[in-house]
């Protein structure tokens, strides 16, 4: 069995917070939407604080121009070599720039967000504190749509 399948099997029964309803934001047409990336890969610039071990609920704001960020997610259980070869495989910022240039999306957000995976099962602090704070920062930048990328 592949390592990925092992991990998928391990995670299949992971305790997760319960959400009884599904929130639904209605974005403007894509060609007018400002798009951000939100990742749980724990990306950060070399000059930003690292993510600490498991259960670090903080986030980093990444500028649109940032490249070659450090992949700060704690786990050893995913392929890191791909990211080293091409950051877009986790953080498709250059792809968004292409889509903005050809008019498919309205704009690339000025800032993007990185959290770290490996959260406690309740994810309460991200849910109630740092998540809403990051969302407010994106809204302040006029973000309409977010693409969420885990590792």
């Amino acid at each position, binding site marked *: 069995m592949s390592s990925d399948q092992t991990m998928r099997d391990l995670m299949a029964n992971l305790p997760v917070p319960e959400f009884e309803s599904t929130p639904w934001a209605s974005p403007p047409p894509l060609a007018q939407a400002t798009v*951000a990336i939100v990742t749980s890969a724990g990306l950060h610039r070399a000059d930003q604080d690292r993510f600490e071990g498991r259960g670090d609920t903080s986030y980093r704001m990444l500028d649109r121009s940032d490249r070659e960020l450090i992949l700060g997610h704690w786990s050893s259980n995913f392929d890191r070599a791909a990211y080293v070869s091409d950051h877009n495989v986790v953080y498709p910022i250059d792809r968004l720039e292409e889509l903005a240039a050809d008019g498919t999306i309205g704009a690339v957000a000025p800032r993007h967000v990185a959290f770290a995976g490996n959260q406690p099962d309740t994810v309460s602090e991200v849910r109630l504190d740092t998540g809403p704070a990051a969302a407010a920062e994106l809204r302040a930048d006029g973000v309409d749509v977010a693409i969420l990328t885990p590792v």
Partner: protein
Amino acid sequence: MCVLAHVLEDAGIATVVLASMRPVAERMNVPRVLYCEFPLGRPLGMPDNALFQQGVLAAAFDLLNAPSGPVLVDYPEVVEAVEAPLACALPPRFDPEIAASVDEAQGLRAAYDRAVARRGATEVGRSIDPDGVPGALADLERLIAGEHWKEVYGPRLDTIGIAHDIRAYYQEAALELAGGPPPGARQAEAWFYEETEAGKTLAAARDALTEQEAPSGITFYMQPVGR
């Protein structure tokens, strides 16, 4: 990721999750999910393949047209990991007076430095810097030789960070030495654990720590699950 989708939608931002764990996404009432059966660590599927990545993004953005949710769609293309080790030659033994892993790490330094110069960044540095890699391997050799971890490290033990940094140093050097297109997922990992002295040393050191009944929190993430 699925929790953040709820949070962002509550704040008025429409989300699409490129999910890698389908059963988790299914249970969380997430508004829009594109399930991508790609190797973990590659949510966009293929490095250095803009066309493939744009295909994934197009499918993700397409979900924004759904009138209501939750919506969960499978991306039609599956990418499998490749478990065969990366083809990458290792440096010849240079100094027989030192441990093979330490010798090997020193021999890879030039390739590592070229990799960092090319990319302008490195994943090494969570616990030790590149200069510290040979010494960190020498410490692991002491564990294997029977010394207790408290004698080797003192009270602060960060073998997870050390393991991460050693592996990152090796993988960055290997990508530089192998050249060509990016390897398949798990190929660099397989090369490290199956072919390098450092990978074998790391595995043996973890076994030694486990025998010493070191806390599982400091050994679990030293290696991927299944190794």
